[in-house]
């Protein structure tokens, strides 16, 4: 008997049952893939490092920089469990020529290494999940994320020129490089075969001038090991323990954090909408519940009947959702996981648990909702079912007093009268749109150039990859000053009065008291110390004054007023700390020297950029014109770019966040459409009688479509207003901690793109909502005026 009632019910209320089923599928899909992604990303780095067999400590040495016998130091260190070495050759961007005429952008890299498959000391993971075992002669592999950044495709050819040797290689594929592959470190490795490598390394003077080693050390006592391998650390160009290397993934983790946010929002939307649909669907049943109570069926049986119906629906929905959650989760992860491997190894288990959870939650909702059955008198249930109402005031607005035309009035009145129902929809829209706006603000800020100061750069209009190597000589500083001065003169002659600047970077041992560390040191030529941003203190005013980042000050346990010592090739130099500055470069570590300090440029590690700041305040159009002109005047300068382009490139994640933003735009539209279509369809099913009545009293179909569409448009507008109001506070809340982890201390001054934030995105969401609501409302055409007489 009950099964017959159930069967009839499923058939008769097909529309509502199908809608509920779709929401269960969506909830199950979002929750399963979302939770799985959360589990995957929180353990992603550990899993990745484990797969790559990453070392506990890394030191990058350069043959010309020191004479330490690495093997001797390592063999004598008792704390070193094992170690591996990879021979490398240092290259710069000029060493590589791409056969493809399109300019490949490699300007934001700190180092480019050439190495072989002969001494691989860690696992380089291929795209298919396998491990790189060997490289064929004439082929090369490189860091996957970077290959994508420079637009390399399998089969592309490059020519490497080093020490008079020139060889062509074909790109065989990307590898995930756990140690140096993060965007934060910005090192590019080209892995070639041992035979090809030897062609370069055996050339005269190549090993001596360009050679070096990557030393991977495994230890169980980091403290002891650091003191035991101090000679290596002091002579190394770059060192870092596992924590530091992991920290360099902060840019990638920012993306992972966004994936987490997307997943959480999807889960929130799924639960909000699901709960609403269940309550909404169940309230439809009250009349029948009342009738069953009236004819003497006991509460337990009535409850059992509905619970079994929802159990059947939720199991079917959860199974379909579970099946869809795998490709959906993979799709999400693939967008986010360019540099690291996000391993969905627990996928099936986590997804199944989530699908079961969804069934449980639905049954819990239903159990709660059907709990009313016991408390209700039969007639209450019948009356509730008939009017769909609780006995409280519904009508809040008055058509008689309103100045609105009747159709917008009816739409607004529906929203006000059923605030909970429409509030849920607004909340779902708000969540989706907020995520989109947060991403929009983040991308606009990353692209705006507003973060120049937090990258430790002076204000500038244009940047170019300078001729850094030329100035890394004894008299490099003088040569650089001359070069910049000539450039200023030349630009002025071409009606482009400007200040030209260049940053040089060193990595030297810095000590304060007993604390010593190898730290990045910066000096600007063409700038003055007061052109940079400081958090505390006063800018260095003389050659013996420096500014430190907070991270460096904490590392050395020094503060403003203290005197630090920098070990240079000319001996120990003492500097007083006068200021603290913030920098996201090199993960917030750095010392800034005064421009008058004469430090030997032979020990420089590289030049950051040649920066140009026009002194006649040209507008954007003029800057763009001058950019081309400068490129003509200085063909040797690589990649002349605007401040915004340069900063965006330096921050390394801009493009990835932009891609995620685009994915979220699509996701938001899909969600807005789905929610609108399913909600509107369920409203139509419930309001069938009212629609028929409106038709009976002479309301045209067009007005009914408008009425139904306007309800969603108004709700959309409300959600948009709320999302716009909360966009900046929510961005501060969610993105500030990420910037803080990257070394920013002061709150970020976010830049917005008004066109995107106030026009494009709201309009896209509103249009998607309005169109889908309108198209769904066309279904009301099927409802005839005559149906007024047949309302159940």
């Amino acid at each position, binding site marked *: 008997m009950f099964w017959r009632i159930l069967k009839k019910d499923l058939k008769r209320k097909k529309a509502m049952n199908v809608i509920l089923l779709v929401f269960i599928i969506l909830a199950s899909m979002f929750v399963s893939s979302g939770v799985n992604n959360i589990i995957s990303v929180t353990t992603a780095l550990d899993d990745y490092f484990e797969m790559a067999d990453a070392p506990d400590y890394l030191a990058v040495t350069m043959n010309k920089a020191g004479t330490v016998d690495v093997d001797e130091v390592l063999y004598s260190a008792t704390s070193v469990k094992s170690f591996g070495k990879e021979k490398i050759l240092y290259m710069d961007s000029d060493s590589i020529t791409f056969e493809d005429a399109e300019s490949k952008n490699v300007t934001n890299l700190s180092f480019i290494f050439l190495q072989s498959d002969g001494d691989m000391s860690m696992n380089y993971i291929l795209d298919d999940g396998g491990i790189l075992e060997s490289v064929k002669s004439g082929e090369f592999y490189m860091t996957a994320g970077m290959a994508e950044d420079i637009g390399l495709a399998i089969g592309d050819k490059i020519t490497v020129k080093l020490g008079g040797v020139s060889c062509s290689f074909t790109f065989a594929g990307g590898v995930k490089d756990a140690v140096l592959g993060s965007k934060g470190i910005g090192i590019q490795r080209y892995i070639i075969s041992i035979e090809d490598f030897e062609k370069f390394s055996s050339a005269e003077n190549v090993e001596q001038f360009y050679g070096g080693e990557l030393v991977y050390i495994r230890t169980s006592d980091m403290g002891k090991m650091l003191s035991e391998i101090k000679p290596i650390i002091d002579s190394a160009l770059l060192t870092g323990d596992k924590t530091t290397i992991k920290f360099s993934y902060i840019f990638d983790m920012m993306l992972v954090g966004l994936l987490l946010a997307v997943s959480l929002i999807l889960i929130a939307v799924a639960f909000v909408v699901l709960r609403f649909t269940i309550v909404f669907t169940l309230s439809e049943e009250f009349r029948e519940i009342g009738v069953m109570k009236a004819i003497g069926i006991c509460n337990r049986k009535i409850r059992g009947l509905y619970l079994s119906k929802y159990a059947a629906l939720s199991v079917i929905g959860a199974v379909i959702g579970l099946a869809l959650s795998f490709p959906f989760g993979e799709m999400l992860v693939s967008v986010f996981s360019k540099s690291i491997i996000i391993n969905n190894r627990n996928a099936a288990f986590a997804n199944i648990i989530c699908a079961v959870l969804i069934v449980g939650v639905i049954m819990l909702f239903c159990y709660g909702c059907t709990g009313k059955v016991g408390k209700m008198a039969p007639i209450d249930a019948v009356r509730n079912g008939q*009017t769909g109402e609780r006995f409280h005031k519904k009508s809040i607005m008055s058509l008689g007093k309103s100045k609105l035309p009747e159709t917008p009035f009816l739409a607004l009145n529906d929203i006000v009268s059923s605030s909970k129902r429409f509030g849920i929809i607004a909340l779902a829209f708000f969540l989706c749109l907020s995520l989109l706006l947060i991403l929009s603000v983040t991308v606009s800020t990353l692209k705006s150039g507003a973060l120049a100061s937090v990258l430790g750069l002076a204000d500038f209009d244009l940047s170019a990859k300078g001729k850094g190597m030329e100035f890394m000589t004894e008299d490099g500083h003088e040569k650089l000053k001359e070069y910049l001065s000539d450039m200023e003169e030349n630009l002025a002659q071409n009606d482009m009065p400007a200040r030209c600047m260049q940053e040089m970077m060193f990595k030297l041992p810095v000590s304060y008291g007993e604390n010593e560390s190898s730290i990045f040191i910066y000096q600007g030529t063409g700038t003055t110390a007061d052109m940079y941003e400081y958090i505390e203190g006063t800018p260095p005013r003389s050659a013996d004054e420096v500014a430190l980042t907070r991270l460096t000050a904490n590392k050395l346990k020094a503060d403003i007023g203290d005197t630090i010592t920098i070990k240079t090739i000319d001996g120990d130099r003492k500097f007083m700390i006068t200021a603290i500055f913030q920098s996201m470069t090199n993960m917030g570590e750095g010392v800034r020297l005064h421009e008058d300090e004469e430090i030997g440029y032979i020990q420089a590690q590289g030049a950051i950029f040649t920066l140009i700041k026009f002194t006649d305040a040209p507008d954007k159009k003029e800057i763009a014109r001058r950019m081309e002109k400068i490129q003509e005047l200085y063909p040797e300068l690589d990649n002349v770019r605007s401040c915004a382009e340069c900063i965006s490139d330096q921050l390394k994640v801009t493009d990835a966040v932009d891609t995620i933003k685009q994915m979220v735009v699509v996701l938001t539209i899909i969600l807005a459409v789905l929610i609108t279509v399913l909600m509107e369809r369920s409203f139509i099913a419930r309001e069938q009688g009212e629609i028929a009545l409106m038709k009976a009293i*002479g309301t*045209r179909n067009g007005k009914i479509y408008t009425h139904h569409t306007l309800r969603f448009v108004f709700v959309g507008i409300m959600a948009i207003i709320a999302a716009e109001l909360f966009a900046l506070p929510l961005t501060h809340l969610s993105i500030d901690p990420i910037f803080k982890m990257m070394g920013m201390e002061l709150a970020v001054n976010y830049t917005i793109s008004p066109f995107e934030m106030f026009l494009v995105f709201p309009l896209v969401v509103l249009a998607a909502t309005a169109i889908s609501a309108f198209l769904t409302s066309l279904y009301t055409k099927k409802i005839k*005026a*005559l149906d*007024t007489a047949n309302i159940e």
Partner: protein
Amino acid sequence: MNILEVKDLCKTYVVNKHQNNVLKNINFTIGEGEMVAVMGPSGSGKSTLLYAVSGMDDPTAGKVGFCGKNIAGMGEKELADLRLDEMGFIFQQMYMLKNLTILDNIILPATQSKKLREPRKETVRRGQDLMRRLGITDIAGNDINEVSGGQLQRACICRSMINNPRMIFADEPTGALNRASSDEVINELLSLNRDGTTIMCVTHDPKVAAKCSRVLYIVDGGIVGEKEMGHFGGGDKELRDRQRELNNWLMEQGW
């Protein structure tokens, strides 16, 4: 002058491939100012007839002339406009929009009317006048679930009157009401009729039909009898006499 002319009206439903001829070649007219009752046993096609002649349902065949226009061939928009401005409807169940107050429900058709085009204040005033006339002024601001069935049906009558329609179609307007409420409602309809509104009313109740000027009796989808009753004057005795006369006639029809 006839306001409604029905000629060879047929309505057929097909249920499970089985053809069910609900209305068979119906012919009748209703003159302006008449109050016509349609009676007949359950399932005889009374309501189907009412909805077919009022444009709520499409007839399968035949012609329905309303104010000289054949509504059987009208498009949806034209029919909607006709229902809005020229016709009023009263249903057995007192359907109203639940998010609106009683007064707002009453004035809703007027706010959509192209015929009236009056300021909102004037619409409200007319709505209030109608409510006063039907004795329900005090429920103007109430929700539909806060009033009794009789009050709600009178509110439905107000709504049907708000656009000054030429004809009101009532489907068992007293069917869901008790005797007292039923009397009140039918007296209001009588009063409207005296003021010149044509009414066609489907009813089971001989007491309601006795107050009408004419009664059509329908059996198995065909009109089998028609009784001219003349206008009801209003006295109790006259009503009793008309009721007796009608009952006798109905007995003859097989009631």
